[in-house]
Every structure is written in structure tokens, then in C-alpha cells.
């Protein structure tokens, strides 16, 4: 089924009229978190206003294809290549990353980096947010990940358990449309309801995965006195596969294809474009535009784009948010803007774990716990790469179909970080820019042309294996987002400043990952070509060894949830302890990131929080004091 975007929805809301409306909920950010909450609240009859910093363009097929054209035409194919850069709402870009000299923050790009370690972490500011470029892996977190402090004395416990979140995981898997098989995903304590099946069957492992599995399956590993055997396991994926007829008690599942303003059927099944990041050309990969469309179709959701939230205004007496002041720009390149306000009974900040605390801190709202912006987390990626003895047909499939998940949990977590391992179907692309760099090297330095070039490409590229170790990073208060009035963007918004170092706990996991990769390559008979460049922007040393560390765009921790207001920013519903009508949602609420890509858990938490919002809206029937007179008459419930 195609997803019909209501034509003109990005233009139909007049900002000045909207400023006079008291919405049930004002949401900042039209990514997956904001879209899920908007869809769920509007389904319950609530009126919602969404503010989005990115361009005000309907999700049309032609608009999507303009992303694709920009990608095709761009000489850099990084995560942001397809998406329009806006000076008014800039995006961090991986290609901006520079090595940071001690004591000299890198201020050259939107994200100011004080280091000591630079990060190439990004997020995308368009309708649909970062799910436009996400890869689409959707693993659940392990039950252990929610109790790290209790079990291993490391990190922070969640105020929620896996069991609390499990039903919302199932809801999130429906919203996203996840392809996976329960039998592959039941490990290390992950459990499912007895009759549960994923909406769609698991995507097949790639030929490359199967080649690795032939030798790696059954490989014994002993760690901290525990024995485990590795196996190549498929990842759950947020992209369309074969619908499982047993889903929903036998009702099946209808995959959601492309978003368009008119009828066109495309994207109902992944076609193996091997381009999940940065853009799936057929929209077989889930992106939040699909959920945003559902919300807008309700007719109860207004959307104002090109609207960058500037300040959260709080009643000093009650601590309640009174309004969000935003700056609306006319064109992406314009300096001029209009200041507008948005008012609701509830407010939701659904940007991401960088922009949420940035906005709060820029509004002078540090939080009574002092933790706003602290405990920034991401995954630390360690890449290792080699050449397999046989042609493995690298560069086919989705970006990643399988990997090793057996070391995501275990007793060793009392000493060192856990990790999940991706087998990358795009070879050394991430580590060394393959296959273009191979081509250039063979032609420019290898004297290859004609048949010898074709042979050289098969030898060099089709044997490539890249293992990406996604290593957990625990919360550390000194890793943080801050703001400084001396760093502002074109609209006068304070830019985020990232201070980031990799904790030793993670580095121990990194060092172990490197050792394990050597054993795996040896077992495969692969040539290990891993080589870490001391001049790399993310070069970090540990116990005399140097490693290239990359970011995962899995932003988390900066408004951590907890059960104690003195040690957390939000409660288990993602409601601010300090501001009772404000929710800060998304990865920022995570106390731990574990070894799961964060989007599925964000979606599950938002499904859960939306219920809390509905409960709160029902409970708070008391009249809301309007700042000015003249509330529109059609909002009569506001005055009761």
C-alpha cells in the first residue's frame, strides 16, 4: 500500500492563527518520536501542533526523488548527501569532522566539538528526521541492559524493565514494520509473547554472511569464565519483507510502501538497493514520514515547518511551560525570520539527544538535578577489515543483514563493554571508502586497465569483509552537550557543543573486539588489512594500542530517565521532573544504550509516553490560564 500524504499539509497551517490556538499538545520535531506521539494522540482525538526545523515541503514522490537526485549527483555519498542543507537549521555532517587539538575546540561546523575525541555523529533535519538516513536495524534491548548497575555495577538502572517495555516493543515493531523471525531473535534473555510473530518474515542473510557463518558458527569464545559459541544471526530490520500470514492472530500485515500525494505503488518489499544509508530509493525502508503522514491524515494535527524552536518559556511559580517561542524562516538561505509562539496543554521536545538539551540549556533550563545535557552517549564503533579467501560477492543486499550478537551480554560486562558485530555488506566502504578508493588505487597506482582492472576489482572488492563492532558506552556526566552564547547559528540559535571522551570501560571492550576480530579472521582464513591511522579524527589509544573510533548516530542519555528527581531529568514516562507539562522524549531519556541501535526503543518509549500524555490530559481538566485574551472560540474546552 502506498501512504497518502495529504497534499498541502506543510503549508495549510497559518502560523499566526496557530499562535492563537491552545493545542492539546505542542511537539517539537517531526522525526520518529514526534510522529509516533502525534499519530497516537490525534487518533485519540487530541489536537496537536508539530514544529519542524526542516524545510516545509510536502512528502511527495518528486520531492523524495529530488533527494535521490541530489545523492546521485553528489561526489560525497555520506549520510547527509541526499538532504538539503539549510543555513537556518543546519545539520552536523560526518564529512565536517576534524581531529581536535587539545584545548582548541573545533567550531568550524554547526556542531561545536570540544573533544577530546571528535565524533562524526549526525542527525538529519527534514520531515521524518534521522530515520530518512537510518540504516533500519531494530534490535530490542536485552533485559540486562535495563539493570546494568544492579547486575554489573556499571552504568545506571532504568526505572523500567524489559517486561514493562515488551508490549511497547511489539507496538513499535508494528509501527515501523519490522522484518524478523522470533526464533532468531530469542537470545540472551529476550523473550516474546507466546504467539508473537514479527509483522514480516526475516530478511535472508547475504551470501557474504553465509560465507562467514560457514566458519564462524560454533566458534568457541571464553570470556570472564563463561563459554559461549558464536553464530551469525540475522538482524531485525525496519524494512519491508515478506508479510507473515501469522501476524496479528492470523490477520497478517500489509507492508507500507512509499509516501506520495498520489497513487503509486512502490517499496512494498526491499529490492536490495544496498543503500539503506543514506537513502532507500524505493522507501521500502521505514522512515518517520510514513507515521507523520498518518498523523496529518487525521486532520487533527497541524504542522509548521521551517520553524526552529528558540526558547522554552516557563512559569517561574509553577515550573509549567507556558509557550515555546520559535523562529520561522521563509527560505532555507534567508537570515530573516519571524518570532512566533506555540501553546499547548502539554509540550513534547522530540528532536534528539543533542537538540533537546540544547534547546533547554539555551532557554536557561539546566534542571534541578543539573543533569540536562550530561551523560551524552553514542555507540563507539570499531571497524576491522580483511579479505576473504574466496569471492564473497560483497556490495550486495541491504547495508547489513547479519552479524554476531552473542557478546551483547554476559558476566564480562562487570569488567568491559559488550558489543554487537555487524557484517557489512558494503565491504570496506565505511572504513576506507571502498570500492571507489580501490578503483582509484588500482588505476592510479596499480597501472591497471582493461581486463587486469576487472580482475583486480574482483580480487580487491568482492573478497572484502568488514566487521563493525558496536560497543556500548556507559553514561558519564562529563560527556555532555552544552551551549555558549558566543556560538550561534544564522537564526541566532545557540549551537550545541559536544564534549566527549570514551570511558575506559568501553575501551576495554574495544581492545577485546580487536583481539576477537583477529581470531575470527584467522578462522576464516582471511587476510587482516585493519590498520588504524594515528591522524584519524577519532583516533584513541588504550594501553599502548591505537584505534579508530567512529560515532554511531545513536544519540542518547542527555535527559536521562530515572525514579529519583535528583539523579535524573525525566521520569519513566519521559516527563520532566521540573516541568510537569513537558516531556523530553527520545534517546536522551535512555540511562544505558546497551548494544541496541536506539530507534526501536525510542519508538517503544514514545508509544508508552503517549499513553501517559493521554492520561495526563484527561486528568488535568482544570482551566489553563492563557497568557493573553482572545482564545479562539472553537477551543471552548480550553476555558472550562
Amino acid at each position, binding site marked *: 500500500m502506498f501512504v497518502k500524504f495529504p*497534499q498541502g499539509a506543510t503549508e495549510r497551517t497559518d502560523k499566526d492563527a496557530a499562535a492563537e490556538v491552545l493545542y492539546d499538545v505542542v511537539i517539537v520535531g517531526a522525526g520518529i518520536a514526534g510522529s509516533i506521539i502525534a499519530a497516537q494522540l490525534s487518533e485519540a482525538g487530541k489536537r496537536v501542533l508539530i514544529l519542524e526545523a526542516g524545510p516545509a515541503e510536502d512528502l511527495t*514522490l*518528486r520531492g523524495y*526523488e529530488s533527494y*535521490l*537526485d541530489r545523492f*546521485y549527483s553528489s561526489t560525497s555519498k555520506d549520510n547527509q548527501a541526499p538532504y538539503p542543507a539549510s543555513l537556518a537549521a543546519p545539520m552536523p555532517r560526518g564529512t565536517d569532522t576534524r581531529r581536535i587539538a587539545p584545548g582548541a575546540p573545533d567550531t568550524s561546523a554547526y556542531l561545536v566539538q570540544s573533544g577530546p575525541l571528535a565524533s562524526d555523529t549526525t542527525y538529519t533535519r527534514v520531515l521524518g528526521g534521522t530515520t530518512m538516513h537510518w540504516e533500519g536495524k531494530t534490535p530490542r534491548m536485552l533485559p540486562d541492559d535495563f539493570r546494568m548497575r544492579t547486575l554489573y555495577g556499571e552504568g545506571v538502572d532504568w526505572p523500567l524493565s524489559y517486561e514493562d517495555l515488551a508490549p511497547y516493543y511489539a507496538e513499535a515493531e508494528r509501527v515501523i514494520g519490522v522484518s524478523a523471525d522470533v526464533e532468531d531473535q530469542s537470545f540472551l534473555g529476550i523473550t516474546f509473547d507466546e504467539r508473537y510473530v514479527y509483522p514480516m518474515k526475516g530478511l535472508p542473510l547475504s551470501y557474504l554472511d553465509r560465507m562467514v557463518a560457514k566458519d564462524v558458527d560454533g566458534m568457541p569464545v571464553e570470556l570472564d569464565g563463561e563459554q559461549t559459541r558464536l553464530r551469525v544471526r540475522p538482524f531485525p530490520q525496519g524494512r519491508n519483507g*515478506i*508479510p507473515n*500470514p501469522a501476524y496479528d492472530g492470523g490477520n*497478517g500485515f500489509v*507492508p507500507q*510502501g512509499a509516501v506520495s*500525494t*498520489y*497513487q*503509486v*505503488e*512502490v*517499496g*512494498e*518489499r526491499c*529490492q536490495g538497493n544496498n543503500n539503506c544509508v543514506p537513502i532507500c530509493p524505493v522507501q521500502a525502508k521505514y522512515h518517520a514520514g510514513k507515521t507523520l503522514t498518518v498523523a496529518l491524515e487525521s486532520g487533527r494535527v497541524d504542522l509548521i515547518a521551517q520553524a526552529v524552536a528558540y526558547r522554552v518559556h516557563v512559569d517561574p511559580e509553577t515550573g509549567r511551560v507556558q509557550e515555546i517561542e520559535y523562529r520561522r524562516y521563509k527560505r532555507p538561505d534567508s537570515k530573516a525570520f519571524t518570532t512566533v509562539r506555540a501553546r499547548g496543554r502539554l509540550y513534547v521536545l522530540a528532536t534528539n539527544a543533542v537538540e533537546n538539551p540544547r534547546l533547554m540549556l539555551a532557554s536557561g533550563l539546566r534542571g534541578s538535578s543539573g543533569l540536562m545535557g550530561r551523560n551524552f552517549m553514542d555507540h563507539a564503533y570499531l571497524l576491522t577489515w580483511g579479505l576473504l579467501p574466496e569471492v564473497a560477492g560483497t556490495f550486495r543486499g541491504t547495508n547489513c543483514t547479519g552479524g554476531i550478537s552473542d557478546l551483547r551480554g554476559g558476566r564480562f560486562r562487570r569488567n568491559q563493554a559488550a558489543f554487537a558485530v555487524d557484517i557489512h555488506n558494503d565491504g570496506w566502504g565505511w572504513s576506507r571508502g571502498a570500492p571507489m578508493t580501490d578503483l582509484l588505487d588500482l588505476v592510479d597506482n596499480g597501472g591497471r586497465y582493461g581486463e587486469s582492472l576487472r580482475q583486480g576489482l574482483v580480487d580487491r572488492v568482492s573478497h572484502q569483509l568488514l566487521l563493525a563492532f558496536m560497543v556500548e558506552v556507559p553514561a558519564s556526566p562529563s560527556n555532555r552537550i552544552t551551549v555558549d552564547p558566543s556560538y550561534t547559528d544564522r537564526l541566532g540559535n545557540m549551537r550545541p557543543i559536544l564534549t566527549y571522551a570514551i570511558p575506559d570501560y568501553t575501551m576495554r571492550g574495544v581492545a577485546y573486539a580487536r583481539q576477537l576480530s583477529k581470531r575470527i579472521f584467522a578462522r576464516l582464513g582471511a587476510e587482516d588489512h585493519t590498520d588504524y591511522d594515528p591522524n584519524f579524527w577519532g583516533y584513541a589509544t588504550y594501553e599502548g594500542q591505537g584505534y579508530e573510533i567512529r560515532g554511531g548516530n545513536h544519540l542518547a542519555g542527555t535527559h536521562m530517565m530515572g525514579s529519583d528527581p535528583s539523579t535524573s531529568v525525566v521520569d519513566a514516562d519521559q516527563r520532566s521532573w521540573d516541568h510537569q507539562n513537558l516531556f523530553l522524549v527520545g534517546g536522551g531519556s535512555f540511562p544505558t544504550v546497551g548494544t541496541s541501535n536506539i530507534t526501536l526503543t525510542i519508538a517503544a518509549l514514545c508509544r508508552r509516553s503517549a499513553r501517559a500524555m493521554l492520561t495526563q490530559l484527561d486528568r488535568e481538566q482544570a482551566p489553563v490560564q492563557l497568557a493573553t485574551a482572545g482564545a479562539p472560540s472553537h477551543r471552548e474546552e480550553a476555558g472550562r
Partner: protein
Amino acid sequence: MTDPTINSRDDLIRYLDAALALEHATIPVYLTAYYSIHSTTNSDAAHIIRVTAVEEMLHLTLVANVMNAVGGSPDLTRPGFVPSYPAYLPDGEDDFTVDLRPFSPEAVETFCKIERPRKAPDPQARLMAVRPEESLLVGSPTASGIRFYSIGEFYEEIMEGLQRLAAEDPKLFSGDESRQVGPEQFYSGGGMIIEVHDLASACRALQLISEQGEGLDTGVYDAEGELAHYYRFRQLQFGRYYQKGDKADAPSGPELDIDWDEVWKVKVSPKLADYPPGSELAAAAAAFNTDYGAFLTLLTRAFNGEPDRLQDAVWWMFRLRDSVNRLIRNPLPGSDGLHAGPTFEVTGTGGALS
């Protein structure tokens, strides 16, 4: 009322076999136009043509499901299954020529004619005598020298025959259920694939073909809220999309851009004989035909008890896409600047499968 032409299961199967060939016959026509469009241009038109072609694949599969349900064996490899272009289709009193053409106003005119709903003025007029020189796609497979007034009337005949036979023969739907193609195998079409087990599901399947495609007029939008093919193509003539509530002659949706020049000017209904003998290009054109035959063999297997083969057929289809694109971008020597194109001269049993 003329006498019914479907009086037995065999008659019915012969009709379904003709329907299979008919549904297939439009696919090369749409594919040629679709792939003639320059990459990354004419997005609106390209999508409309592509989606229609995919739905013709759906129709083909639906016919196969009906055929399997009544104990037939769909065969896409029989000699003559792929027509020789130009082929002829009925359009009421007259018939018209269907060529393999690049995307052009003439091509769209042909698409509209293929898909235009035409109801016979009275039941007597459903069947018409065929002029002897014609090789028609919509002749009656059981009564010689007879063709149908329109594709819609052809399907009406099948549905009436089906209902009559089902009433007479309770065992009509005795086909092996494992031969049905379901939603796990077929995807990406407007309207879901329908597995056929009885009269009701058979009628639903044929009804879907009729409503989406070349059937009798059911209005701009069908029961599922989908645009029938005819109206999709009309949008290309109007330069504007329909939206709900529109009258047939006045679409009021978003505008749609067409650039007739962003097209490879493919020679109309090319033949292998047009290619320079012994050339690399001629070999590529011949290889395409072999591969297309292999594709039809694969579909035949998918429709004869191996429905999972449909997945392989899709891969094959994607490879054919790349071959067609390569052909179309090559100038055809000696054709006044026109370009090469697939000839779809598929003989008999198809090529070897790897």
C-alpha cells in the same frame, strides 16, 4: 443473445489461456515506453507506466490462479504466446494496432485505447466476425472467426462461462491449492493478489482485472478507491492528476510534468532483421530475447506448482531491465538516428535457465 462460447472446462481453460496471452501482450508495450524514458526524468509518467506494467503482471498472475483453480496448467512458453508486434486489439467496431513504441503522445494514445472501457451496445454485439487478414489477440479460442467487441466483453464472457460451469459442475474448482500464488510471493501491485479456491474468489480475481484494467467502465475510481488504468493514462493526456470526486473529463489534482524530449527515440516495433547482421548489438538483442524466453519459463514454473519461483522471476525481470536499458541507449545503425530496442521475438519454449 448469441450462443455461449464456453461450454466445458476445456473451453474455459482455453479462454483463460487466451486471457493469459492477452494480459502478457501489453507488458512489452509498456516496458518499451517505460525504459525509453531518460533516467531521472519524467518521474510522473514513468511511475504511471511502471505501476500499470506491474499490475499487468498482477493480472497475469490472477489469471494463472483462476486457471490453476479449475485444473489448468498455465503455459507462457507455448509458440505464439508472445505476439508479433504490431499486434491488434479490439476497440469496439474497429480494432487498432499495438506497436512497441518509445514514450510519446502516440504511445499514450495506444495505452488509452488498450485500457479504454468499452461495453458492447447490446448483448448481440459482444461477438463480432473477424476479418480474415487480422491476427487478433481477442479472438474467441473456441469459435473460429469470432472476436470480441472489447477486452471487457471478453472477460464478461469468461465470467458468465465460469458461473454457468460452476453451477453445473460442483467439482469445477478442484485444482491443487499449492499451485496458487499468494501475497507472500506476489507484491507491489495496487490491489492484493487473490488466491482462488471457489467461484467467489475466481470472480473476485477476474473482477479485479476488469476494474483495474481493460474492463467495463466502473467510473474513475474502482471499489477499492484505485484509479483504473485508462484514467491513469488519461492523466498523461490532461497533464493533471485526478482526485476523488473528479469527473472523467476534468481531473483537478496536482499538475504533472511531461517532457516528451527526455526520451530515447527507439525504432517502432523493431525486429532482429533491422540489426546489422553479426554485430555486437544484434547479439545483445538476440540475447535479450533468449533471456525473455527464460523469464517466461520461470513464470511458467511459478504458475505450475513452484510459486516461490516468482521471487527468481523478479530478479530476472530486474536483469531484463538492465538489458533493455543498454539496448535502448545504443543507436541502431542505418535507422536515421533511431535507437535500438528489444524486439520480443520469442520463439517457443524459452531459453535455458541458469
